[in-house]
């Protein structure tokens, strides 16, 4: 199993990465969805002791950026989880991380969670725009939808899709994955502190599952 898979969808060539991100070589752009920064902080705010997961997630992101020499990072919504979790420590962690990528342009296509935080800290240098956003022949938005055949490719997040794989009679394995259905490619959540909703693809869809550092397309028809 490889750690990335090239795909061509609606005339756009992308690389699906096992690390739950997409790289668009033409534009040197990296797409991720659902980072949910500050989720652990929100839990702490409400008295529930949960360890912070931001730093390891940021390290993964840094690795991807340098590995692919990306110049643009597009977040497909839900950058932050809730304003209660964006505490000074987190702001500081992110700011320090941001300084390590001074040249990188970061855009946030706002999702449902992003409404909780009115303004992102200036030091983060993240441009925040409402969905949908068109980049060349790719449309970025947070919530997936169904599109006609002549619509350009749409990238989305929101669902944190996971699929079930069946082995033998009843043994099932759940994996995070990419789900392409009717013109819309849904990315798995990048955050390591979110659950995935189980999606059930239909026979015309395409599905790629990620497993540890590997990615594999699973046929939807047999």
């Amino acid at each position, binding site marked *: 199993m490889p750690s990335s898979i090239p795909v061509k969808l609606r005339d756009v060539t992308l690389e699906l990465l096992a690390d739950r991100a997409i790289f668009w070589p033409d534009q040197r752009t990296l797409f991720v969805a659902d980072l949910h920064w500050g989720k652990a902080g929100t839990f702490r705010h409400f008295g529930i002791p949960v360890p912070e997961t931001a730093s390891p997630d940021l390290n993964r992101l840094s690795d991807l950026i340098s590995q692919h020499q990306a110049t643009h990072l597009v977040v497909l919504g839900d950058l932050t989880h809730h304003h209660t979790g964006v505490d000074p420590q987190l702001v500081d962690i992110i700011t320090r991380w941001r300084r390590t990528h001074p040249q990188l342009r970061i855009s946030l296509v706002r999702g449902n969670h992003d409404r909780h935080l009115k303004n992102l800290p200036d030091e983060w240098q993240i441009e925040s725009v409402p969905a949908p956003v068109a980049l060349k022949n790719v449309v970025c938005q947070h919530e997936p939808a169904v599109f006609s055949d002549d619509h350009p490719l749409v990238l989305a997040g929101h669902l944190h899709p996971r699929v079930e794989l069946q082995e033998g009679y009843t043994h099932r*394995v759940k994996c995070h994955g990419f789900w392409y259905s009717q013109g819309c490619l849904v990315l798995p959540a990048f955050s390591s502190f979110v659950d995935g909703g189980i999606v059930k*693809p239909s026979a015309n869809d395409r599905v790629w599952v990620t497993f540890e550092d590997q990615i594999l397309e699973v046929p939807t028809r047999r």
Partner: protein
Amino acid sequence: MSSTARRKSARSLAMEELTGWFTGQDWAPFPFQKKVWRAWLAGDSGLVHATTGTGKTYAALGGPLLDALKKRQQKPGSGKTKRSRSRKCRLLWLTPLRALASDLSTAIQRPLDDLELDWLVETRTGDTTSTIRQRQASRLPEVLITTPESLSLLLARKNARELLSEVDTVIVDEWHELLSTKRGTQTELALARLRKWNEDLRVWGLSATIGNLSEAADVLVGANPLRPPQMVKGNAHKKYRIRSIIPETMERFPWSGHLGLKQLSQLLTEVEKGGTSLVFTNTRSQSELWYQAILKQRPDWAGTIALHHGSIDQDTRRWVEDAVKKGKLRCVVCTSSLDLGVDFTPVERVFQIGSPKGVARLMQRAGRSGHRPGETSEVVCVPTNALELVEVAAARRAVLSGNVESRSPQDKPLDVLIQHLCTIALGGGFEKTDLLHEVRQSWAYRNLTQQEFDWALDFATTGGESLRAYPEYSRLETPDGDNFALTDRKRARQHRLSIGTICGDGTLTVKYMKGARIGSVEESFVAKLKRGDLFHFAGKSLEFVSIDNMIVHVRRAKKTATTVPRWMGGRMPLSTELADAFLQELRQYHEGDRKSPELKAVSEILDLQEDWSALPSQDSLLIERVKSREGHHLFFYPFAGRLVHEGLSALVAHRLAQREPISFTMSVNDYGFELLSPQKIDLPDDPRELLFRLDTMADDIIHSMNAAEMARRQFRDIARISGLVFNGYPGQQRTTRQLQASTGLLFDVFSNYDPDNLLLHQSRREVLEQQLDQSRMRRTMERLLSNEVRIVYPPRLTPFAFPLFVDRLRQKLSTEQLKDRIARMSLVLEKAAS
């Protein structure tokens, strides 16, 4: 008053009064009741064990009554004046089921009224109205009937000590039900606290017969009792009759299966004999199926038959219980939800569908009939497959010999401790050395180390090691590091809502579109439903409409449904006692003793088994090897119950697969397990050392069982109890949206970022000890090592192998890489719209 009477002591006058009351009821106190009264008067604690309906309630109540009567003799007229001012709670009566509270209340009220004792009896459970609750907030009645959870909530009140410090007696009803659970641990901690406030506290447990009665008594009185607990045996010689409905034609009777509907018409004939019948099933889905089947055969019974299980709405259940008590129902199909409590005098007949699983359980169920002292309790077993007939005969043997299962108490669960720390912090706060000492007085935490206690306290206060970087986080407040309190109102409310160790996890309320509640189902079932799908629930045929805010909206279906929800859990293993009795039945059969009607009925099948292979036995391990189109099968019959077989099959598969890369599918039941592989398995002539050696057992289990995944699931309850999951305030969905994380996810996050968290260790330990029953597994392996091995090659699947073969609930184990397997797996797709 005559001069003789005056010379009598107040105590014997009190005794006369109480015995007089019994005589007035046409009863005479049983010797065992008097024994408990005397022990109570002497200041003792202890355990009364007897079957239900034998007068345990008045055995426990007598002591406090005598005391009150005695005091009245000494000080006539006292207690009449200004009673409400001086009112203090004296007697706490704990019951595991709040449904029992009102019945108990009536039973306790009777002698009080007749003897004109001026005591107030009240209940305090989840059902108590807010007016009464409010009044109880400042003053509790003399007798309070409550549940372990409600008692914890009382302890979380600031004035807890003031309310409860004069409690001198605690009665723990149905102690056997609580003993092995975390609610039992919660009870132990509460008792330790009450005992600290009043060291003369008398605690009496009422229990059905279990295998470890003296341990049960020890747990109740704590680690360092001032006086050893007294054991009082209730009226012995409860008579049991256990028989089975034997199928008319054995040829058509299946070798496997668990529905048993083939026996329906015979059961109906028995039910028609009159009176109320209880039909016990082993699962909720099965009860739904039987209810439908009965109604289909006897449509004219509609209105006189009912369904009762744990997912049905409380009000409906209570209505059913009430109707049974009044003798208005002909038949109730039920699950273990009716095992306990409520006095069901009108019940004439009890049926058990399928395997009784355990001796104590069957006795308990049988005890629902013949509820009056001295009557015989009868249970009619309805086997669902041929081998279950042997189980019935085995159960009868075990009941006669009194071989009843034990229930092991929990060993220092840290999640319950963390919850308790918050409870006490809320209920007035604590000093840490004091509290450690107090907690160690309970049986469960008698061996709690200073380190473990410090860790739990640290976790409850600052979130532990992983949150060091977040000094502003705290749940408990501590001004000096020694004293702890919880005063933040929001956190306090949150904690009170999460008290309670019984976890209804992931269940959704089922409601009609118009709003009436029907009950609750598990999320996993609802996830499979599509709009318009029909399913049976609570005895009704329903159509799924929508789901939002944890509520499943349904309407009455016009057509008959075909599916039944599957509820998780409740799959009990066959107990060791019953399994042993099963093997004894087989041995007697083998030796030519064929008297029991059940074994006579299955003789053809047993003969076939002997002919093709051999009968499994206590002192040799039978291994059958069969080749079929599906591959190579290995069947083992250790007779250790399905939990142990689950662990053992994975372990054996793991050890075989260590020698060469190979994939197995495993299938288990209560009698044995099957390993199926595509290639032929190389098995030495004496495989005992290879398969059952004990030295690497724990490691091998962890490697073979996907123990990580099991621990992840076990973490669900632990996270809930220790306050890591907050379900939200009743009726306020939105405020808690931001706090949604499955416990599985929390488990992953803790494993990655706080791997030394003791709650993770606890979940792994609980998997090994409780889910896999490691100690029973070890005993089984020890036995198998010393057994001789018989490997046979039957011409085809034997009667014992067949149920394993057809059981599709299989586990997989493979030493191939998961990524190679993923490539072979198929995706679960949306079902094509039909």
